[in-house]
């Protein structure tokens, strides 16, 4: 059963709706004690990474989150939170995975936010992407991206440069796209996470 870390950063109705469609049970985490009720966790998030981090700090759950041993998935800004730093608001983040979140450069050819369906190239044999072909399209909407890093990038996408569509370190996973809005492949990824 998935515990969703509830810290007030953005709407989670679409995420919980997707889990319900897929028959994946979930609950909300408000306090440290709530973590015990679940065997895996999702950190959601939309909006401003610095503001989201401030809200997460306010919950008092940060030390517990950093010490989690069970599978944990950050989605969009929730993924950015597990990195060390974001240029958005010049913010220090959870630093669970030592990579940085940077802003896309403005250019005539590549608009920001990066909005729409882009191709994702996961590592072969990744259980999170089981059954999902190379180059499958996922839905992105973001102005900040996580740098590509050989050690931690689990899936890459190209948009003016190669960046991390997904990262991993031990039990911590992140996806920049929105699996709950990414059609059948997104639903497959959520199912894979529930089965890790």
């Amino acid at each position, binding site marked *: 059963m998935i515990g969703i870390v509830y810290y007030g950063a953005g709407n989670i109705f*679409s995420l919980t709706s997707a889990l319900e469609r897929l028959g994946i049970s979930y609950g909300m985490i408000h306090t440290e004690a709530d973590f015990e009720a679940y065997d895996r966790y999702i950190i959601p998030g939309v909006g401003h990474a610095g503001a989201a981090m401030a809200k997460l700090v306010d919950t008092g759950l940060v030390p517990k989150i950093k010490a989690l041993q069970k599978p944990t998935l950050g989605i969009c800004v929730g993924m950015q939170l597990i990195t060390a730093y974001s240029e958005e608001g010049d913010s220090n983040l959870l630093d669970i995975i030592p990579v940085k979140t940077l802003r896309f450069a403005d250019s005539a050819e590549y608009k920001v936010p990066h*909005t*729409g369906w882009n191709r994702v190239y996961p590592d072969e044999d990744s259980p999170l992407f089981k059954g*999902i072909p190379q180059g499958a399209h996922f839905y992105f909407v973001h102005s900040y991206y996580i740098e590509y890093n050989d050690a931690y990038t689990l899936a890459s996408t190209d*948009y003016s440069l190669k960046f991390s569509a997904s990262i991993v370190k031990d039990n911590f996973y992140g996806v920049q796209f929105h699996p709950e809005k990414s059609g059948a492949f997104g639903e497959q990824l959520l199912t894979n996470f529930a089965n890790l």
Partner: protein
Amino acid sequence: MLAKRIIPCLDVKDGRTVKGVNFVDLRDAGDPVELAWQYSQQGADELVFLDITATHERRKTMVELVKAVARNINIPFTIGGGINSIADADALLNAGADKISINSAAVRTPGLIDELAAAFGVQFVVVAVDTRHNDGKNIVYLNGGRIPTEKETFDWILEAESRGAGEILLTSMDHDGTKAGFDCTFLKTINDAVHIPVIASGGAGNVQHFVDVFEQANVDAALAASVFHYGEILIPDLKEILKNKGIEVRTVAKLVSA
């Protein structure tokens, strides 16, 4: 490479779709959720719901619609129509809308764009612009092209971008309903001038019009209503032709068996 998006637009009144829809396999052609599901299965990349409800119950029906769509549909969607305040937008966000589209309210109160972008992020704010050619100028119109404003379209779109619009939905009223093709020339002018995505709207009549708007204007997305609702263009066929023309699109592929 980022795919060009195909976006069916559904007009909704009192929670029901209006305008004829003649998909053969719909149980209830007036049910926006069923229609949305059908489009998502066909490979639509995104949906726009335009709520034209006029009653004071509008806000409640919009929220109910958004919740029903979010429960059932696994692609992103935008809702527009009569959104005037942060409170309206907040209710729709919490009901599961990915984006809201504002039109007249933004023209009357441009600061609303700034407020919405600050509150919810630019990715949530689509500014819809109805434009019409008038006396050698492109002018912003309100109320579906009936009421001219003082604003020149080019200037207004740049202002909307600078205030925090995350995307522009540009409808050429001179082309809308003609089925003679998008206004590729003006769309290119706008698309080249902004650094946010542009959705082309107005004039789609056949598949070649979509090829033209992507090849000539290089917009990010193309929106249409009747050609999709009446089955004149089927989205899988459209995507196949775009793909054969070398235009990057998302096709609804199958999961690989593990």
